[in-house]
């Protein structure tokens, strides 16, 4: 075996392209190649010697070496030699292997089996390690109890090779109450208290910070909770159908250590997000426009509506291809999830949403008054 060949390594390349895999498949047996393909899908270190790869795949040693060399020639693997003393089996640095005596056991290499240290060629793909979500908090929107949360909970629980706790936060159906500031504040406070309680309970032996998946009104409650309670810390946040204002400053929360990273998953055909500011105080169309201060991974789905994320097969695909990757891949790979750009936004003049809310309130009062009058008149008629 000659000296390790130094391949030009492209540190941004973690795995062969689809075309390269096809080319490799034409020259190498599928089982071993598919095994390697699956291994390279993972983040972090992937390392084999020809012997260990042959053991893992059942392939012949020569085949294993050929596959590893072929992938190395693409610049995916770096090569180095690993040395070991044949007397004590301890590993040696190259400079130690060039000496005469083992620094671990004191034996002369020439006194050991083979009369010299053993040498093994190693193929390594080094990449940033993935992230391990600790637990997930799911917060639904208004006017729904969020049946999709059950499906999402199942997806989270079955994606990893370990149990991933999911807490579905339910705050009931909120219809007219959403337009009342005091009701919003109360809901945000309750959410904050729940996060605090669960983090303390779970944090004794685990990372206490939850990753959060929030939809619609849930996004507004989450944003308020984080802003109003600096003690709250979460991990990564996924927003779907977000009704936070596009000028909401996620950067500040990230710098304060309250939030690790944010994915704003936007829906181009969302009809409800653009009208939320007219009705719900403090809200805005970030679920269609994006966030302006930046610091957020922006992904715009051109065919999605307000709740398109949660339909059956679509949700499974969204979870696998976007949300799980956002939660578990290193941050250096988040740019792969970006699609589109945030759009400019200016808030409506304050009088317009105020007028709409007053009108709504007036209509509600009229309905209630009409109902009361009808009740009184009907009662009088009954008595007379």
């Amino acid at each position, binding site marked *: 075996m000659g000296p390790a060949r130094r391949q030009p390594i492209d540190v941004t390349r973690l795995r062969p392209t689809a075309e390269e895999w096809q080319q490799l498949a034409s020259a190498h047996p599928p089982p071993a190649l598919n095994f390697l393909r699956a291994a390279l899908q993972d983040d972090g270190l992937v390392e084999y010697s020809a012997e260990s790869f042959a053991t893992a795949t059942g392939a012949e040693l020569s085949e294993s070496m050929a596959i590893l060399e072929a992938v190395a020639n693409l610049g995916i693997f770096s090569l180095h030699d*690993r040395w070991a003393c044949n007397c004590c089996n301890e590993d040696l640095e190259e400079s130690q292997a060039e000496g005469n005596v083992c620094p671990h056991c004191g034996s002369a290499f020439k006194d050991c089996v083979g009369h010299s240290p053993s040498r093994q060629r190693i193929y390594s793909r080094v990449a940033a390690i993935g992230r391990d979500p600790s637990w997930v908090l799911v917060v639904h929107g208004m006017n729904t109890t969020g049946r999709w949360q059950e499906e999402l909970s199942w997806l989270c629980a079955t994606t990893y090779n*370990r149990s991933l706790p999911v807490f579905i936060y339910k705050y009931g159906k909120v219809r007219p109450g959403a337009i009342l500031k005091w009701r919003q504040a109360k809901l945000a406070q309750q959410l904050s208290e729940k996060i605090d309680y669960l983090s303390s309970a779970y944090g004794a032996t685990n990372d206490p910070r939850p990753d959060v998946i929030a939809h619609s009104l849930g996004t507004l409650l989450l944003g308020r909770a984080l802003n109003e309670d600096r003690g709250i810390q979460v991990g990564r946040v996924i927003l779907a159908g977000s009704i936070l204002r596009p000028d909401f400053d996620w950067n500040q929360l990230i710098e304060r250590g309250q939030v690790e990273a944010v994915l704003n998953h936007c829906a181009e055909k969302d009809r409800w997000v653009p009208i939320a500011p007219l009705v719900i105080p403090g809200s805005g169309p970030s679920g269609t426009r994006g966030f302006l201060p930046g610091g957020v991974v922006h992904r715009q789905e051109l065919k999605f509506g307000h709740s398109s994320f949660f339909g059956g097969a679509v949700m499974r695909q969204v979870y696998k291809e976007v949300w799980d990757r956002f939660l578990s891949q290193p941050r250096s790979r988040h740019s792969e999830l970006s699609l589109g750009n945030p759009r400019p936004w200016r808030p409506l003049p304050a009088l317009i949403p105020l007028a709409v809310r007053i009108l709504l309130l007036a209509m509600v009062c009229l309905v209630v008054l009409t109902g009361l009058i009808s009740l009184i008149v009907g009662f009088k008629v009954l008595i007379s």
Partner: protein
Amino acid sequence: MVLAQGNLFIKELLRAKGLPIGSTKADFTAHMLDAIDTGALTEADFEAWLQRVEGWGDQHIYLYRWKEKEGRAWEDASAVRERVKAAGLLNAWEASSSLAFPEDLALTGIYFRDRRLRVVWHQGSQSMVRDTSRDFEEEVEGDRYEFRAYRERSERAVMRFDLRCDEKVAGAFLQVPISSDAHRPALEKMMGTVESLLGVGTLKIIDVAKLIRGLDQAQLKEGASFSTQVARWSGPGAYVEFGADSPSGRYRDVEAIRELRLAMPPTVTGTTAKMTFEAPGDEGPARQVRAQLYARDHRIWLGSQMTEGQVWALLDVSRST
């Protein structure tokens, strides 16, 4: 004694004094002898340097929590001296650094500075090291013989007990091999002397199983200054081991293995671990050092020569998890 220290540390001494270094131990020797002749290196320089590097690293460590019973007895050096006197050990109090090679383990110094107590023992020993450059073959009475050479080397083992009063932590540091019959008696001799100074029952050994769990858990995430190469975990009647193929590797870098480790319940106990730490460069030559932790006898073994500051930095990191 100086040449018995690692090359890295000898070079550090020469560099610190602004002396020429060289590339081989022969160069170091020559430059050091020149420096002694010219007075550039004094006995005080050697003593201070030996205190810092001799007997640190390549040793077994037992860590203790200290329960201070008589606060005022540890306020200052004069109070400590009285305790040393009461224990009948005054001849070792503030003794100048020993350069002796006693045949049996001997108490050579007791020191108290900056609210830190240090008790030191030394023992000389001889070992045979393989030297292939002196091998030769010879024909004797018609038969060919190969003669393999070993060179006798004199060494000095240092044993220390360090008590840090403010942090309420202590460490017993031994260079006696664990496989040697002398290890346990040496530790018992040390603790006997220590108890005569500190009192009985003031030291509680730190549970290394908890250290293994804390360190291994902390290194699962990116950013830790240490990592686990191999860790073995035991349950009631079975065990599992997580390890990297490479001696400098980290098993946590392999996603599939890391996920398995995350699935491990807290009831499983760490029994042994091999870890790699970054020894801080401001305390000595910056390098990666290997430590092995053994829960059964609550022992830590450091496999590289280090400085005093580096050893304590590593122990502080371990305790902080």
